[in-house]
Structures are given as structure tokens and as C-alpha cells.
């Protein structure tokens, strides 16, 4: 039952009612609007005490800086987080959905939720939408099985890695990681490695910049270092 006074609840999930209209508009030459893209450098690595994830802070719409203070480290629970690149809205909604899912899982089981639960939710969701949800993520976390770092691509494929870089600045960042990553680094070495990897992206990729955020996940908890560094040369 619904009326003007009592509108119906919206259907859950996406609405596709304008898809056909939009496809025909594009065929007629209409240019669709630009979405805010994180245009990001994300880098992450496993070190001997846990996981470290770093991001830059710029969000762009085309060639305009849309946000100079963007948070691209998305916290799922006390032991899981991901760094996101791609369409900003998709990354934010992904965080909301997975966080709710993981929290319900925690309440139902009464235990700390393993990283693979969040990872499976993310990959299945992305696969269902066949790459149209444009987020490329590095999912990291610590659970009873150990330290985990996975990359996830928009079409829903994933892989476990020791270190990874994502986003438009990933080529600069991964070069630094491939050269300087070593196993069993301590926290300070890991911070410097990720900081330098993000800096490589920030300097060489126009869509990355405005500072560095870090997130460190260890068995004792999560530390989110907002504005870990705003390089003086940029101010």
C-alpha cells in the first residue's frame, strides 16, 4: 500500500531504470558527467609486525582537484581495512556495505572476523556487477590465521600478495616497492618504504597528491595516521 502521503519504500539495491535512456543518449552524442575519481596512489605491504597501508589524499574530477583532504583508507573492523582507488562513491559504498556485513558476522559469531570474510564479500559483490562498480582495492588485515594482504580488481578477481600498489600512481609506487621491499622489515622500515612509494606516486602522477595517510594493523589493533606527512615542497 502506498500513496502520496505514504510513499513506497525504495527497492533495495541499485535502480537500473535509466540505463537504456543513458545508453541512447550516449549514442546520440551526449557526454555523461564525470564522476569523482580518487585518482589515487595506494601502496601496502606486510612487515614483521602486521600490515601497513598508505594512500595519498587527492580526489579529482577530470583534471580538477575535487577534494584535497580525501580519506582513502577505509576501515572495515578493528582488524581489517582497505585502501581504495577508482570511483570515490564506489569505494565509500563498498566500505559501508562490507563494514555492516562484517559487524553482523562478528555479532553472530562472537569472534573476531577473519580477513577472508570481508574479501569474499567484496569479490562476490564486484563480480556480480561485472566491473561496473569501479573500485580497485588493497585489502589488508590481521586475524588468527596471520597477516593478510590481497589486491582486488574491479571485475572481482583477487590475489594474495606481500606488497602491492594500486591506482593511477601505481606504476611509480610499485617500482619503488619492487626495488626496496624486503621480508621481515620492522615498523619504521615499513613506514619509510610505504611513505616513499606514495611519494613516488604523488610526485609523478598528476592525479595523486596533497599528502600521505598511513594505516598500520597489528595484532594489538589498528592505528590510523591521518596526515602522516604533508611534504613541505608542496605547500
Amino acid at each position, binding site marked *: 500500500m502506498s500513496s502520496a502521503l505514504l510513499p513506497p519504500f525504495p527497492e533495495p539495491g541499485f535502480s537500473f531504470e535509466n540505463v537504456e535512456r543513458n545508453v541512447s543518449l550516449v549514442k546520440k552524442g551526449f557526454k555523461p558527467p564525470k564522476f569523482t575519481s580518487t585518482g589515487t596512489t595506494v601502496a601496502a605491504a606486510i612487515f614483521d609486525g602486521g600490515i601497513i597501508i598508505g594512500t595519498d589524499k587527492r580526489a579529482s574530477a577530470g583534471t580538477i582537484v575535487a577534494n584535497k583532504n580525501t580519506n582513502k583508507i577505509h576501515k572495515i573492523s578493528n582488524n581489517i581495512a582497505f585502501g581504495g582507488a577508482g570511483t570515490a562513491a564506489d569505494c565509500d559504498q563498498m566500505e559501508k556495505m562490507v563494514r555492516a556485513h562484517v559487524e553482523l558476522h562478528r555479532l553472530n559469531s562472537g569472534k573476531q572476523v577473519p580477513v577472508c570474510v570481508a574479501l569474499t564479500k567484496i569479490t562476490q559483490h564486484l563480480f556480480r556487477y561485472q566491473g561496473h562498480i569501479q573500485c580497485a582495492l588493497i585489502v589488508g588485515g590481521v586475524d588468527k590465521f596471520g597477516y593478510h594482504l590481497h589486491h582486488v580488481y574491479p571485475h572481482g578477481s583477487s590475489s594474495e*600478495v606481500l606488497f602491492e600498489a594500486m591506482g593511477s600512481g601505481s606504476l611509480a609506487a610499485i617500482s619503488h616497492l619492487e626495488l626496496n621491499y624486503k621480508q621481515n622489515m620492522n615498523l619504521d622500515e615499513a613506514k619509510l618504504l610505504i611513505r616513499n612509494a606514495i611519494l613516488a606516486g604523488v610526485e609523478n602522477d598528476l592525479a595523486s597528491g596533497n599528502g600521505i595517510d598511513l594505516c598500520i594493523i597489528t595484532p594489538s589493533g589498528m592505528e590510523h595516521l591521518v596526515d602522516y606527512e604533508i611534504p613541505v615542497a608542496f605547500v
Partner: protein
Amino acid sequence: MSSPFTLNWADDSHDLEKTNSQFDSLTPDYLKHPHKTGTTLMAASYDGGIMIAADTRTSTGTYVAGRLTDKLTKLTDKIYCCRSGSSADTQALAAIVKYHLSFYEEEIGEPASVGVAANIFRDLIYQYKYSLTAGIIVAGWDKRDGGQIYQITLGGMLKRLPVAFGGSGSVFIMGYVDSTFKPNMTRQECRDFLVKGITLAIHRDGSSGGCARLATINESGVEREDVTYDELPPLI
């Protein structure tokens, strides 16, 4: 309504992809191309069971997105599959087949046969052939038929073979396989045959690379072996 035999469906999906690529030439590779396992896969039977092998490269366009990928995916204790094509598609497929098999084993109370695993794959790939890009080799050992290798094509055809190869690198080693493979090799012979094949393909195929991963499946179980790039046999 269009006939189910036309390819209209595939055309429509292309239009959607076009509207979605917002950022023309500025789009990074990973948003433009689906993740592909441009791959070399091999499987061969030997006198005690079967062996499977694959390279470890995953690429998006020209970017190497993964250099230590494991394309040999476990389905049950003694059944593995080798994945080629879109890595998102094949990972999702493998997870679904794995789920079906564990449910099936629970129901019948014994290990699933390799043929069952291959047929579940075939069903899914045939049914969703217009939305999937998946070339799969299913290999394993069961009590009834011993070591078996099944290949499933992109269109959903299933064929049992004594030796199989797949992925983009397979075209470079067809002649090698035809001239070198012989039935009832020893395990060591079979291992060397596969490693050489993967090495040849890595050498010639740009989208195959990295290391070689192997698995041997026989009555006593599964043994994995990883051959790093510098351990690959030298080419003359």
C-alpha cells in the same frame, strides 16, 4: 524478440562498457581491461596419475598485475583445475564448483569423481558462455578411473584427453607437445616434459611469464612444486 542464436547480447554488453569508460585516454589500464590470465596451462598423464602445470603471470593490457599468481586451484582433495581467461570469471567459477563438489561429497559420503567436477564446470561455462571468458582444465585422481584430464573450451565443450594444454601460450607449444608426449611416462619424465613446455611458452608468449607451478596428483594425494624463473631449464 531476437533469436537466442544471435550474438546481440554480446553487442549490448559492449555498449554498456563504452558508456562506462568515463575517462577516455586518462583511464588507467585496470579500469579499461578486465583482468586476464594470459596464460600457459599444461596437463599430462603419467604411469601413476596426472601432473598439471602453469606459469604465474596475470596481465591487464600490457601491465603485469600479478607475477606470482597460482593458477592451479584446488577443488577437492584430489581434484584441481587450471584456470585461463578472465581471472575474475575463473575465480568465481572455481569457487562455485568447489562449493557444489563439497556439498555433493557430503551427500554421497565419498570423494567426488573427476568427471563430476569437469561436468559441473562444463554446465556453467556452456550456460553462461556469452558472459564468461573461461578456459579450464580439470585434472585429478579418483578410485574408479584413476588419473584423468578434462579440457573445457570457451564455448562449453568437454573432452577427456591424455594430455592437454590451454591459454594464450598454448599455441607456441603445440608442436612440442605433439612430438614429445608419449603415454605412460615416468613421473620424472612427465615433470620434465611439463616444465620444458611451460618454459618454451614463457619464452615466446608475452602474456605468459614468471615461474612455473606444478602439481602431481595420484592415489596417495597431491604434491606441489614451484620452479622459480632461474631454475627453469635453459633453452638451446
